[in-house]
Structure formats: structure tokens, C-alpha cells
């Protein structure tokens, strides 16, 4: 059922030419500014750099360097694990929150949703900076813990390392995990839950057998979303990662900055993109085998 298709049945000659022009216009922007850059980017990954100049010849050396060099592949794998961790944490905390919100009525539900989404409105950089201030040796968290006597030495392991990156990303990305889960939970028709209770199931059984399976797809979407966002982030590691919190994103970024090896950076990005695509497609397939609501 379409809104603007009224006289399309039984084509008019006049309309066909018109449609062609519209079609071309419609494709123009996405192709020029999305497809083209990506293709150029892909090609760039096959060039190489010689003494500071980009040589436009096709080669696989960038990819070779990634797989054989000692620095890159391990960092990449480490980053992937880190981001999986972020995805896990955000979903772990995001699900209960989404669940609670989904159980609220009317006005309250949307007000609470706004409350949980507001933190997204805070400037990204300042947020990281504030988190750094909280987690640091001299930061709020330590001060409070010291004040209450829970510890007698400030905790130093919370900042300028990979754990810090993990925590920071989790805090920043949590709302992104929560939203898809919330939407999925909202979609479940009340009648299904009522039916479950009517048939004698307990709250737990209803959750386990009805609610959880039906919300699984949304959960997977939330996790994937968070994973992808974390994977490409290079600012957070830079600000709270210190020297040991080096992620793949930072390596890529530096190729376009100090290291000035654009082709190599492009190759690394392509690898990153490949992982992202696998994640999206993989989880997409996984989600589709579930029963759709």
C-alpha cells in the first residue's frame, strides 16, 4: 500500500520520462557522496606510501603488513574483545532499565525515557573529560571512597588504561543499548503476557518463555549497535587510555595524522569495516531466525 502511486498502473508516456529524471536525481546524492567515497577509500587501501608520497599503484602490502606485523593484529583482536565487553556491559545494565521503563504506565514511561536519554545530550568530549575527572587518582570517586573510609589509598587502576576505556565507553554508550531493547519490549502485545499468566505461568516463567525470546532481537540490535560504535571510537582511548589503552581506532587515526600513511590507514579501516559488516550481517541473520512479532 503506497501513498503516491495512484496513476502508475497503466503507464503514461509523459510520466516515464519524468520518472527517469526523478530516479537519476534520487540516486545522485547517495551515489556521489556515499558510494563513491567508499569506493575511492577501498582503492586507496591498495596504494602505498613511498617517502611521504602516495604512490597510486595497486598492491597488497598494507594488508600483508597488518597480518604479519607484530603490533597490529594483536591490538586489533584486543580491541575487538574490549568492544565485545562494552557491548556486554551495556546490555547487562541496559536490559533491566529498559524492562523497568516498559513496565511503567503512560506519562511516566516517556518522562523516564527522556530522563535516561538526556545524558546523550551532553557534549561527548566534555563527558569523557568529566569521567576522567571522576575516575582519576584525584577524582571524585576516590575522594568519596577515601572520605567514607572504604579505602585508604586512592585507586589508580581506574584511569589511563584499558579498563578506563571500557568503563568510559560503557557509560557513554549505555543509552544506545537501552533504546532498542526498550522498543522491542514495548512491541510485545499485552495479550501475550496475559495469556501466559492465564495459562498458569509464574512471572519468572513468563519472562523466560515469552518476554525474553521476543525481546531477544532488540537486545541483539542494541548489543551490535554498541559494539560498532565502540569499535570505531578513537577519542575515548586517547583521553582516558593512557599508554596501555591503545586501541585499533587510535592506530587508524594516527595513520591520518602523524604517521601520514593514508593507504595503510585505509586498509586498516577496511579490515575494521569487514568486522563490522560481519557483526551486522551475522547478528541480523541470527535475529531473523527468531520468530518475528
Amino acid at each position, binding site marked *: 500500500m503506497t501513498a503516491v502511486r495512484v496513476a502508475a498502473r497503466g503507464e503514461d508516456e509523459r510520466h516515464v520520462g519524468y520518472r527517469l529524471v526523478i530516479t537519476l536525481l534520487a540516486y545522485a546524492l547517495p551515489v556521489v557522496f556515499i558510494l563513491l567515497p567508499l569506493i*575511492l577509500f577501498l582503492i586507496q587501501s591498495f596504494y602505498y606510501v613511498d617517502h611521504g608520497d602516495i604512490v597510486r599503484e595497486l598492491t597488497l602490502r598494507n594488508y600483508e603488513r597488518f597480518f604479519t606485523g607484530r603490533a597490529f593484529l594483536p591490538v586489533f583482536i584486543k580491541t575487538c574483545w574490549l568492544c565485545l565487553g562494552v557491548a556486554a556491559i551495556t546490555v547487562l545494565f541496559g536490559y533491566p532499565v529498559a524492562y*523497568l521503563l516498559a513496565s511503567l504506565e503512560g506519562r511516566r514511561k516517556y518522562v523516564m525515557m527522556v530522563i535516561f536519554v538526556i545524558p546523550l545530550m551532553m557534549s561527548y568530549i566534555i563527558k569523557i573529560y568529566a569521567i576522567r575527572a571522576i575516575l582519576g587518582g584525584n577524582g571524585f570517586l576516590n575522594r568519596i571512597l577515601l572520605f567514607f573510609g572504604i579505602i585508604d589509598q586512592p585507586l589508580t587502576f581506574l584511569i589511563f588504561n584499558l579498563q578506563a576505556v571500557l568503563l568510559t565507553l560503557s557509560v557513554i554508550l549505555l543509552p544506545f543499548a537501552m533504546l532498542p531493547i526498550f522498543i522491542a519490549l514495548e512491541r510485545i502485545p499485552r495479550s501475550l503476557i496475559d495469556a501466559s499468566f492465564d495459562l498458569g505461568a509464574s512471572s519468572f516463567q513468563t519472562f523466560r518463555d515469552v518476554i525474553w525470546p521476543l525481546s531477544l532481537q532488540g537486545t541483539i540490535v542494541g548489543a551490535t549497535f554498541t559494539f560498532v560504535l565502540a569499535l570505531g571510537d578513537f577519542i575515548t582511548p586517547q583521553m582516558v587510555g593512557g599508554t596501555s589503552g591503545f586501541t585499533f581506532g587510535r592506530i587508524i587515526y594516527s595513520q591520518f595524522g602523524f604517521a601520514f600513511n593514508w593507504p595503510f590507514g585505509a586498509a586498516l579501516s577496511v579490515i575494521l569495516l569487514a568486522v*563490522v559488516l560481519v557483526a551486522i550481517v551475522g547478528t541480523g541473520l541470527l535475529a531473523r531466525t527468531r520468530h518475528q512479532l
Partner: protein
Amino acid sequence: MIRLSTTALAILGLIAGFVLLVLYGPLLVAIFFSFFKFENNAVQWDSFSFDAYRSLIHDEGIIDAVLNTLLVGGVAVCLALVLGTALAFYYNSSRSRLREVLQLLIFLPFLMPPIITGLSLLVFFRETDIPRSLVTVVIGHTVFVLALAYRIILARLQTLRSSLVEASLDLGASRWQTFRYVLAPSLMSALGASAILAFALSFDETLITLLVTGTKSTLPMRLWAMMRMGFTPDINALVTIILAGSTGLSLLAIRFVGVTSRR
């Protein structure tokens, strides 16, 4: 809607409370320090003032950056809305297989890590010799938020009954009149929601901007630069103002969407 037993409610409430604390921690820190000073490694509890806000008004660099951010956001949103509407209409009235490909292309910049979107545009601008400036930033933002606007508008378009368009034509209206009187009003809520969300995304967009920006900067760029040198106190004031503003806008958006969706 889910029913909760009191124990479940309590546990979930606790978790939610904890999450809320964690999420608002950074916000509260920023807001707090826009009013209080931090000197000699300690909080000066008696230093409550609006000094930070006052110096903000005089900080030209920041003001400039904010204006640029607003400009970029405004233009990107307009472009995204117009293109999003056009593309949504196209998708809806087309029957070719190719439209799925087109849709995928539109979603791509949103699905991929922003770093890749930014980098590919960077490479593109370099290869085509387009100088990096606010224009390239606008392009980057538009490409990014287009997916959002398109999705929201398309979703709304698909729920419109075709009989409404037929009725309008049947009553003698031209296609333009039909769009103006029947379709556009129905799309208002979708356009409004898209505009607000897109603007919010664009405002704080850091990753892509960082890569395709020229010499003039948006706010995130300014902040990025300041990160090395150290932040001035008025930054906290700025953040607080932005928070207040966006909160207000979101509440407005909720009412807006709530009211129009009744029909």
C-alpha cells in the same frame, strides 16, 4: 506492558537507580563546576557564582564555534529533511529492486563506525581536490543524519492510506495541491521529530567532523583543541546551558510527537 512484582520492581529500581547515578555523574560534575571553583586541589564551597557564565559571553572563540555548530547543524538538517523526504517518496512509489540498494546506501553512513564515514569522505575530498571547510563538514553531517530523517519520514509515509491521496485527486486537487494540503500536514510530525533528532546528532558530532574539518571550527573541534591546553571554566557553563536547552527541546519534541500522533 509488563507487570512487575514488588520484589522485581525493587531490584530493577535499584539497578536503574545505579545506572542513573552513573549516567548523570559526568553531567553533575560539569554543572557543579560551572558554579563552583576548584582550586588548590579542593572544592571551594563558598565560591558559588555566575562568573563562568559571564566569561562565556566574552569568550569569542567559543561563541564563534557555537555559531558555526548551529550553522552547520541548521544547513545539514534542512538538506537532510529535503533529501530524506524526496528519497522516501521515491522509495515508496518505486517498484524496482534497485530501490533496496539505494536504501542500503542511505543507511550506510549511519551503520558504519563514524570513523569510516569520516575517513572515506576525507579521502574523497582529497582525491577530488575539494578543500576542507565548513562546506565539507556540512556534507559529512548531512550524509550522516540523512539516514535518520529518511527512516522516520518513510515510516510515516508508509502508514498513510493511499485512499487519502485518491480522495484528494478525486475531489479535483492537482498533485501539488494534494501534496500541500494532504500529504505535507501528515508528515509534519515526522519532519519535526527528524529535525530535532538530526539537529541533536549534528550538534555534538565529533568523530566525522574531526576528520573533514577545515580551519573554521565547530564546537566539538574547539573542545578537542582545548583538551590539550586545558579547559577554561566557561566550558562547564556552556555545557550546562546546552544541557538545559536540549532537555527543553526534547520535552517539547515529546509533546509535539504525542499530540500529532493522536490523529
